[in-house]
Structures are given as structure tokens and as C-alpha cells.
């Protein structure tokens, strides 16, 4: 009997050695462990043995069963790995071939700039508001201290629709509208991005349509120092922490004092380069303290309230930030231009 067991073991090893496919492994399982398999055959002989022998052989057969099972399982695992390896080998591809084109669409550079500025000002408690592009002369000029015949109207040659209606030349009318609409005459903190229009021929630096962001803050005790603080915040946020602001007096009919703001050059840090034309400073926006006539025209008492206003040109900011040389690029919408803006920004 023991001899037979050994024989079975030897045969099994031989059989297993020959198997190279998983499906054939099952045949072996049947051959040894099946109902008519060799182990079953041996088991059927047990009944003819003595009780002592029965016990001994029974345990031997049991061990044999376990061993056969283990051996087959081991072989099964081996074959499975082998077959998986074969499958993987057969499925190998050239990973250096090009990928399938999947992309997000791009946000227009002007929108990127406007979004960025909006986010900053919202964080400082400003409301984002809007006003009509087809505007009344009253709001675009008169309420802003620019009566008819004022020489400063010259610099904003306008597209008129009727004598009283025009395409707004600036987002400043939204200042007047916001103050007018505030019936309690309470403090105001708003920015207003939008399209504006001037009667200019289009060239590399002029566009008959462009965008502006107007800012207005009206409260008790708002001063030039506050304006400067807010503009510094703006410059640092947009162009990097090290930026500084420089104010130059200027003239806008709707502010007094009027101030042009320069930001220290983000490229050279103030040493002078081609971007800042060697001056170390870049002209970035116009601003000032809201003219008392404008406050009064909109129902605010200038003896109680003061305020500042500023106007940012997103085109200018974008041109500086992204190194764009021709303002018309924003409106031509060449896909190669737009596709440049398909990623996050780097360090400021």
C-alpha cells in the first residue's frame, strides 16, 4: 500500500511537470482526486484491511490527499502567473505614441485678469456691480463733473447714438449710478468691470472697444492714505509681494485730488528695463478722491462723506503680465493666442 502511495506521488510529480496550461491542470485533479481517481481507488481498498491497518493507511491516504491538493494548487498558482505574464506580454503597447487630445477650454486673458481682481476686491468687502453699456450722457459725463463743452471730453471721443445716449467711454458712470441708487446714502464699496468704447481707430495700442474696472469706496473719513493702501494691496496681489505704489498728481474731472498710480516694475524690480522703459515704474491706473461735485450730484454730502475711485485697464494689466504687444490680439481670438492661457499661473 505504501508503495502504491509512493507510486502515486511520483506519477503526480511527473504529470504536473508536463502540464503547461491551466485547463489541463483540471484533468490531473480528476485523475488523482476525482471519484474514479487513483486515490479513490486506493481508498476503496481500505475496507479489506484490519482495524489497525485501516487507521494507519487512512491517515496515510489523508496525508496523500492533502499533499496532492497542495501540489496541484502550487502548480495552479505558477501557471496562473505564467499565463498572466503571457497575457501582459501580448498586450504590450508603445507608451511613447501620442495621447488622445483631451483638454479644457481656455478662459480669455481679460476674463482671467478681471476674475483675479474681482476675487481680491470681494475679499476686501467690495461688491461687484454692473451698469449699462448704452449710457446716458448724464451719467457718463455730466454727473461726473464733465459738463457739455468741457475740454476733457476731447480725450474721450465718443460714439453717440442720440444727443443724450452714447456707448459709455468709461465705467465711471457706474459710480454715479451706484451712489444715486443708494437711497440711504450709506457707505459704498464697489467695483464694476465692463466693456467701454471710444471713437479711436484700432491699432497696436488703441482699440475702439476695451474693458475697464471701476472701483469706488465712499465712507466717512476715507483719505488718500486709504486709497494708497488699497492700491498697494492690488499691486501686490496682481504683480507680487515686493511691489510698491507711486502716486503722481494728475487731472480727471471726477476726482480731486486726481492721482496716477505707478507700480514698481515687476520684471526688473525697479532697476530699469525694457518693460518699464528704464524708469523702474509702470503706469498702471488712474485714481483719486471723488470730486465733491460728483458726490453732491449723487446726493452725498461732501462735508460728511469722502471717497476714492480708481479705474483699472485689464488690457494694460494683461499686456504687462503676459507680455502681449498688440491690444488687437484680445479681440482677434486667434486659437494659438487663446490656447496660451491653458494653464495656471506661475510664481508672481
Amino acid at each position, binding site marked *: 500500500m505504501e508503495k502504491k502511495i509512493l507510486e502515486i506521488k511520483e506519477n503526480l510529480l511527473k504529470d504536473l511537470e508536463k502540464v503547461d496550461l491551466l485547463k489541463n491542470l483540471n484533468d490531473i485533479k480528476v485523475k488523482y482526486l476525482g471519484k474514479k481517481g487513483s486515490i479513490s481507488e486506493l481508498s476503496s481498498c481500505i475496507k479489506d484491511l484490519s482495524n489497525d491497518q485501516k487507521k494507519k493507511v487512512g491517515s496515510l491516504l489523508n496525508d496523500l490527499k492533502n499533499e496532492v491538493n497542495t501540489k496541484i494548487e502550487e502548480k495552479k498558482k505558477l501557471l496562473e502567473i505564467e499565463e498572466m505574464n503571457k497575457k501582459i506580454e501580448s498586450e504590450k503597447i508603445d507608451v511613447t505614441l501620442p495621447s488622445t487630445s483631451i483638454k479644457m477650454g481656455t478662459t480669455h486673458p481679460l476674463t482671467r485678469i478681471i476674475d483675479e481682481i474681482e476675487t481680491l476686491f470681494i475679499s476686501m468687502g467690495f461688491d461687484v456691480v454692473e451698469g449699462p453699456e448704452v449710457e446716458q450722457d448724464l451719467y457718463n459725463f455730466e454727473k461726473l463733473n464733465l459738463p457739455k463743452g468741457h475740454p476733457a471730453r476731447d480725450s474721450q471721443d465718443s460714439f453717440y447714438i*442720440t444727443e443724450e*445716449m452714447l456707448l459709455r467711454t468709461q465705467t465711471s458712470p457706474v459710480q454715479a449710478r451706484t451712489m444715486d441708487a443708494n437711497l440711504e446714502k450709506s457707505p459704498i464699496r464697489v467695483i464694476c468691470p465692463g466693456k467701454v468704447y471710444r471713437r479711436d481707430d484700432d491699432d497696436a495700442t488703441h482699440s475702439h472697444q476695451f474693458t475697464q474696472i471701476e472701483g469706488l469706496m465712499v465712507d466717512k473719513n476715507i483719505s488718500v492714505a486709504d486709497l494708497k493702501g488699497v492700491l498697494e494691496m492690488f499691486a501686490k496681489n496682481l504683480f507680487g509681494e515686493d511691489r510698491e505704489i507711486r502716486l503722481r498728481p494728475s487731472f480727471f474731472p471726477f476726482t480731486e485730488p486726481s492721482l496716477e498710480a505707478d507700480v514698481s516694475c515687476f520684471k526688473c524690480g525697479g532697476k530699469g528695463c525694457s518693460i518699464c522703459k528704464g524708469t523702474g515704474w509702470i503706469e498702471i491706473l488712474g485714481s483719486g478722491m471723488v470730486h465733491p461735485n460728483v458726490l453732491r450730484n449723487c446726493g452725498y454730502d461732501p462735508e460728511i462723506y469722502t471717497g476714492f475711485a480708481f479705474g483699472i485697464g485689464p488690457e494694460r494689466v494683461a499686456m504687462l503680465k503676459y507680455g502681449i504687444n498688440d491690444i488687437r490680439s484680445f479681440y*482677434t*481670438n486667434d486659437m494659438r493666442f487663446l490656447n496660451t492661457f491653458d494653464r495656471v499661473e506661475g510664481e508672481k
Partner: protein
Amino acid sequence: MRVSKKFLSDYIDIEGINYKELAEEMVFCGNEYESITKLSDCEGLVIGKVLECEKHPNSDHLHVCKVDYGDGSKQIICGAPNVDKDQLVVVAKIGARLGDIVIKKATLAGLESNGMICSLAELGLESKYLKEEDKEGILVLNEDAKIGEDALKYLELDDEIIDFELTADRGDLLSIIGVAYEVGAIYNKKVKLPIVKNKEIDPDITSTMKLDVKTNKCSMYLGKKVLGVKIGESKPFIKNRLIASGIRPINNVVDISNYVMLEYGCPLHFFDADKLGNEVIVRNANDNELFTTLDGIERTLSVEDIVISNNDKAVALAGVMGGLDTEVENDTKNIFIECAIFDSVTVRNTSKKILRSESSNRFEKGIDPNRVEIALNRAAQLLSMYASGSVCKGMLKYDCADHNDKIINITLDDINRVLGTELNTSEVNEILKRLEFKFEIKGNKYRCIIPTRRLDVNIKEDLIAEIGKIYGYNNIVSKLPSSNIKKGSILRSELLVKDIRKVLNSLGSNQVITYSLVGNGINELFPIKNGENIVLLDPLSEDKKILRRSLIPSLIEVYNYNVARNMKDINIFENGSVYYKVDGKYVEEKMVAGLLSGSTIKNSFNNVDLKVDFYLVKGIVEYLLKYLGFNNRYSFRVNELSGMHGGRSAEILLDREVIGYLGQVSPSICKNEVYVYSISVEEILKKTVRNIKSVEIPKYPSVNKDLAFVVNKDVTCASITEILKKVGGRLLSNVEVFDVYVGDNVGKDEKSIAFSLTFLDPNKTLSDNEVTVIFNKMIEEVETKLNAKLRDKNYN
């Protein structure tokens, strides 16, 4: 305004101040400059004497000269026709620089030349200021020129010029004296005014001439007479200063009118008194009145213009330009000087219509009424000094201008409140003194007296701005406003637009921004709402004269631009307004529109190519609406749409109202397959959206069943699904179309549509029987209502 350093030095001591630094200081007082230049951009020019002058042996036009310019006799070859022995000339030595040219030792026609004898033109003056002889021949100097000395200094051409770009409010800086006050405030120096004094003779002008001002557009008119002038050339200093200021010298008389205008900022006009006659009338022009200006051009005037006339006809266009008939000419003897103030708006309008001049520019920005009389007398004084004139007693005078200085009451608190500073009275006093503004102070209260020359300083805030300038805005310490903390907000419409942009970007669409102005006929191409076009009164060009009412034509333009540059896979959108007029009201409606063409997702070697078709664009529109919270609330309806492909377009409905359309652009407009969609953001804004509510994941299994109908090809898919959904009720959880078949296995006018249905009861496991009942009912309804035939139950 071009400001000559020499001219400015007459009124303020700027000795030792670098002119470039002065320009920079002025910038921080609000006066930007365009450039700083030298009147003559030359170095190394000296005075020389021509000792010998012979014809060049090898040339028919050159001369061989021996010139002494301080280092003994040097040979210079000169090509000028007028060079001669004993002349005192300007010599550019070896190493001298004339603009960009450096003079080197040279050999001309075989002979050595050690420098160059210069013409006036070669000294760098613009040719428009020069006479022909200045360009053709060398400049010959007077006897008093000293050999070896600096030639530019001798010629008074050693001047520098700052070209200021002034702001519209600073009319006072259109005068050298005005600039002197500004510089004085910066450097804390006092202005020196010219002493104006005339020895006057009979007859008194009022006995020979009469003035009549018949218009209210002239607040001041003064006239003075100077007799017996001799016309000639101006002194070099006058000519040089005019040239430095950008004005062409003409003769000693005309030059004085310009010189005094530059000094005081008051435009003057000189008439030939004999041609003018004895009557001066200031009046509105007549409509269609013809008038020939000094430049010889006949102008047609209107009642909006002001003219000066004699008893016969107009002789000057007030504030703009004189007339040809009373022009000062070489034989003019007697001069009538006009110095006046004309209404700024009137002059502005006239000059805009007719021509801009130095004079009109000053009238537009305003004239100091207290300088008019001084300027008039100053002109008379200079005519007697430099044109041998005799000044007549008296003057013609009309004056209803306000000559009073302006009073501004202000407190220290006012100043500090606006500037955000902590200035004290002694600091403010110092600044006011620098500005030469007189003031009285009681405690913290100032009573400031603002001179009339400062037309721009009228109210407290103007004065604060001036104080800020002198204090220095960059000395103000910045801070952040100490307002109440509040949340910044954004309009709902803007939030919606941001969401729309996010969705479309995520679907691969590039945002574009295009122009709002379009040309004729563009608005009528695609579907628009009822209303009128908004048209510009005075457009720049034909293609930009009407506000757009649809974004689609602009997107097609972008498409065409890119296709022409070989970019054929286009996926773009724009969010922007369309504009029209309804019942007299101007409407700006926010829209979003997109355009797609070519392929979206592609991988050529791998045969991946998702081409744009109607269903892709429909998918984008559906996803957008779903994202915005309108699942199950939108639908599509076939309707005739202008500009769109009749068989491949549809209206988009939300809650059964039209909000836009989508489909293929008519092949008559775009020959390639181009798909667009247009949705009114304004319409979407009108709708409310429910909040997200989480649904429980079904616990019970669903049952899938497929079926296919054969229907007439005009029966829409939507009409079948509508019935399926209605019959299926709440137990039908999903309907999917998985096959549409047209071909041999169905009739000629037929198609087969196959659906996969999912049934689910969230509360229990569905029994076969329940599903079968519904399923059979569905078949029955579709068959009877749509004349359909069941093609295959359990299709798969």
C-alpha cells in the same frame, strides 16, 4: 508746452538746477513731460575766422580755407558757395558732434580737412524754422564774435527744452510765467515778473478808434495802438525762444505777439491798424459768413462763431486766427494790438471745426483776467523796444470779467481728512507761501486768497490737491480703510455667467471676446428678438456702426479667421450682451453662444475622432442646462430659424419657453459643417432652481427590457419617449435609445428605433407580472397613437 530753460530763467532763478531733475520734480506735481531736448544738439562748436579762402584745385565747388579757431591756422575744405576770406564762422572741430555725426579728420578731393564750417541748418534746428539761406550757405557771424569761443553760447542756442504734456485743467502752465510759479513752489523760490512800463504819446487811442462788443461770448477786450513800427528780423534771443517753443519766427512784430503770448499765456493779435480802420466790433458771425484766415483759406462761419470786424467785414476769427486782409506785412507801419478773453467753449467749438492754434488752445483752457492788460502793455513795450514803435496813450477797453481773487475757507482738519496726513499749521503755512497763495489763519481755520492765474483752484478740494502736491503724495503713509467688516458680494447674473464659463471651459470650449459693433445686415442673419437696431450717429467705419443683436455672426467671424489660418477644429463660446431697442427703451440682454466645428477629441493613429455634429452640440447644451439645475425642464422643438440648416436645427425650450436655439449654420452661410448654439442668460435668470437633494441608492434590483418600433421616418424619437414615460410612470427609471435603423429591413419611408428601458420600484422588488403589464401597455399606446409596429420585443 515746450519750455525753454533760458526763457524760464528770465522769471525764476534755476541756476545750478539740472533741467532733467526739474522735469522729474514737475512730474510729481502732476505735469508729465514728453521729452527733454537740446535746442541745438551739438558739441564742440567754436567760433573761427577764415584767414584764407582759395578754390580747391581738384573740385569745381569746394574751397580750401585756412581757419583760425583758437589753435592757429588750420586747413578746412568747405563746400558752401558763400564762404569767403575774413568771415567769422561756426567751426565744428575734430571730435565735435553734430547730432549723431562726429567730425573726423578727412581728405576731400585729395586735400586734408580739419573740421567743418557749419550752416545754421547743420546746428540741428528743424528746417521748418529756417530760411532758405540758412540751409544753403554757412552761417556768417557778426563782428563781435570772438575766435575760439563757444559758438552755441554766442548764438544763444545753448538751450534745453522740456516738452510738457499738460493736463486739461492747467491752462496757467501754457505760459512761461505760469511754469515759473510752479517751479518756484517746488524749489521755494520767488517769481521775478518783467517790469512793464511805456512812454506813451498822443493821440489817445480812444480819440481815434471805437470799440463795440456785441456778443456775450467776449468778457474782456482791450486794444492799444503802436505807431511807426519798422518791420525787420527779430533779435536772436526772441527767435531762439520762439523756435524752442515750437513757433516759427516771422518778423520782429509778429514774433512779439507770440513772445508775449508765451510769457503770459494771453493770446494777442496784431492788426495792421491802417487796414483795420477806426472801428472794432466784436460780434457773433453770421450763418454762412465767408472769411479768409491768415493762411489764405476761405472759411464758412456760423452764428456759433465769434468774429472781430471793422465797419465793413470780419477781420479776425476770435481766439482762433486773424484775417488775411488786415495782416501785418513788410510795409505795415501802425499796429493795433488786441488782447481779449473769449468764451472758452465757443473757441473750442470753432477751433474744432476750423483749426486748432496756439491761441485757441489757450482760450479753451482759460485766460487769467488780471494778465490781459499787462500782456497788452508788454506787447506795446516790446514793439517800442524791438520794432521802433511809438505807443499811443490810452486803450480801448471792454471789461466785464471778474478780476477778484478767489477766497477759499479751509481748516487743517479738512486737509488732513482728505489726504490722510497729520500736517500742522506751520507745514501748511510753508506750502501756501511756496504756492504764493496769500492767506489769513485763525486757529486751525484758513482763509486763502487764490490768485486769478490759478483758474484750476476754485474749491477746497482743489486747494487740498495743491497742498498734497507740494507736500508730496509719496510722503503720505498708506493704510487700509478702517471701515466696518462686510462680505463682498457679486451679482447673481455674474455668478451665473461664471458658472456657464466653468461648464463650457470644462467641455473644451475656449472663451472669446469680440466687438459689440457690427455692420449693416449682420443683425438680420440669425434669429433675434423683436426690437430695433441701435445705430451710431457718427460711426468710425461701415462695419462698426450698429450694436449687435446676436453673438453668432461674431463667432462665425472668429471661425473664419482661424480656418483661414489652418485651424479647423474650433470649439469656442462667448458670453456677452446683445443690444436693441424696444418701445423706446434700450435693452442689453446677456447671452451665451457657442460655435463648434471639426473634431473635438482626436487621436489619429488610434482612430479616435469625435467629430462635431448636432448631437454633440445638443449634448453640450443639455449638460449646461443640467448643470444649471434644469434637469427634466428643457426640451427641443423644430421650428424655422433664419440662418440655420432647416433639417438640423431646433429651438431650446426651458419650462416650455424658448430660451435659444442650436444647430448647424445654413450651408449658404458656412459651407463647412459649423454648429452653433445661442442661449439667453437673461431668460435663464428668470427661472428658479431647486436645491440639490440626495437620493437614496435603490435597495431593490431593477428590471431591464428592450423594445423596438418601426415608425414612419417623420415620427420623432421624443414623441415615442413621451408615451413610454407617461405609461411607465414612476416605475420607469430610465429610457435609452440604443439603435436607429433605416434600410432594407424596414419600409422605404420607415425607420426603426430601439429603446432600452429600466424599471425600478424603490420600495420593493418588481415582479415580472407588474413589468409585463406596463410593458404591454406601452406597446399598445405607441402602436395606436403613432401608427407604429413593434419590431421586436426583447430585441436582444
